[in-house]
């Protein structure tokens, strides 16, 4: 999950999907695609209705490359749905904006805490333990591991 889109060459078709703010973040890559005369399509997520997007993505052929740009807070929900449709990490770029909130798994009580990305320590909402944010990430929990901050 990045903050900036990068042009990936050699794809059969490009899809630019996002809300108003997100599509602005994709504009430079979109210009490049238009400039090179490549096949592309734009999908505005005006009300972020997942079923419409899912139907649209399901109807695409192999070789399609997707750019998705929406707030960080929504990104994981969309990513899960897109992966369920069958898109792999190599076929999508996820671009986030706004405040980045991460989940932190408490090593003692397994509570999933929400915290700002920049925060390095917090007290667990479940058991009160002083937690240090690590970079060990679980896809299944969609959370980073919080270790005992101080013995």
């Amino acid at each position, binding site marked *: 999950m990045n903050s900036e889109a990068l042009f990936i060459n050699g794809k059969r078709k490009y899809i630019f999907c996002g809300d108003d703010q997100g599509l602005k973040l994709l504009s430079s890559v979109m210009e490049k695609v238009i400039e090179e005369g490549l096949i592309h399509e734009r999908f505005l997520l005006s009300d972020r209705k997942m079923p419409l997007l899912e139907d649209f993505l399901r109807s695409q052929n192999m070789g399609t490359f997707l750019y998705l740009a929406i707030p960080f807070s929504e990104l994981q929900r969309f990513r899960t749905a897109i992966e369920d449709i069958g898109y792999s990490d190599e076929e999508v770029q996820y671009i986030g904006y706004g405040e980045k909130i991460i989940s932190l*798994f408490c*090593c*003692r*009580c*397994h509570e999933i805490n929400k915290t700002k990305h920049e925060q390095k320590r917090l007290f667990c909402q479940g058991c009160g*333990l002083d937690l240090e944010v*690590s*970079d*060990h*990430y*679980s*896809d*299944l*929990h969609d959370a980073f*591991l919080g*270790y*005992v901050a101080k*013995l």
Partner: protein
Amino acid sequence: MKWTADLEHFPYPFKGSTYRYSNNSIPMITPISVEITPDYKNEMLLKRNLLTHHPDRCYQSLPHTKTAQWEIVELVIDHLAAHYPNEFTIEKQNSTWIFSNKLLDEKVEFVFGDLQSLPCEPLAFISHHVQEDLILMMQRDDDLYLDAGQLCFPANWSLAFNIGMKFKNIHHPIPGFKEEGLDDRILQFLLRLEAGNPWERKNWSLMAGDRLDTSLETFDQWGQLRKQVTKENAGKLVHIRVEVQKLFRLSQTNNILFTIHTHLLSLEQLTAIPEWLQQFYDILSKLPPHIVEYKGISLYKNAVLKYLEKQLERVKAT
């Protein structure tokens, strides 16, 4: 609980005078996934207590693992019955199996493959009869995933967090493991593991205290002892912790069973053997800082070294 590990059964882990991370697996001479030691009854009592009171911490499984779990039950029961016939028996009448654990005076009848015939999942069931922690690594898409496990005696990691994780991601916290390319080398080795040719390795660490259940979930409790180590009490307080890890390819489901048998020995007992004392001192004094840190020794390494130096002086004087 005080563990009185006997030297005869202690799996001394060291070779040479230095230690670095490596794939130190060797082919097993006697291919058996589990071992019964004199501590069996004590450890089973502790393990069952942990499984009852901390189920999420000690047992995790994903729904698609049931067939592989049954294969583990078959492998472990066959090993127990073949290698410890006086302690364990199995009667197989078609799908109906009667398993007897004479050490605990228990007999269980179940229908192999029928989940309803057991009081819990198959992996949990067989875990109640062996000292080892049992981990199922499922193989797909050229990778290994920790998709089920019973873990009562972890060396400071969390099964609940790691469930569903890929091999390399599990080992992400180990400093230098990725940078030195070890994660990929060991993964490739495991992916090539063959049925009928199991491997084993020993892994070691030091700990302040003598708990087997050093879970990440309870680190805030047992980790406190690290601050209490002195050169005077290190012999009794500090223990070397050795995991005998065994790797079996499951021939029917093509997954891997990873068993971990944990042993503890006090430094006092370890250093009673002069060769071990000198070798361990050499290794510990030359251990790189990132390994010292990861193995949790930083806080009391100097106290242990001073204790070992005193023991070396004692040996030289006699």
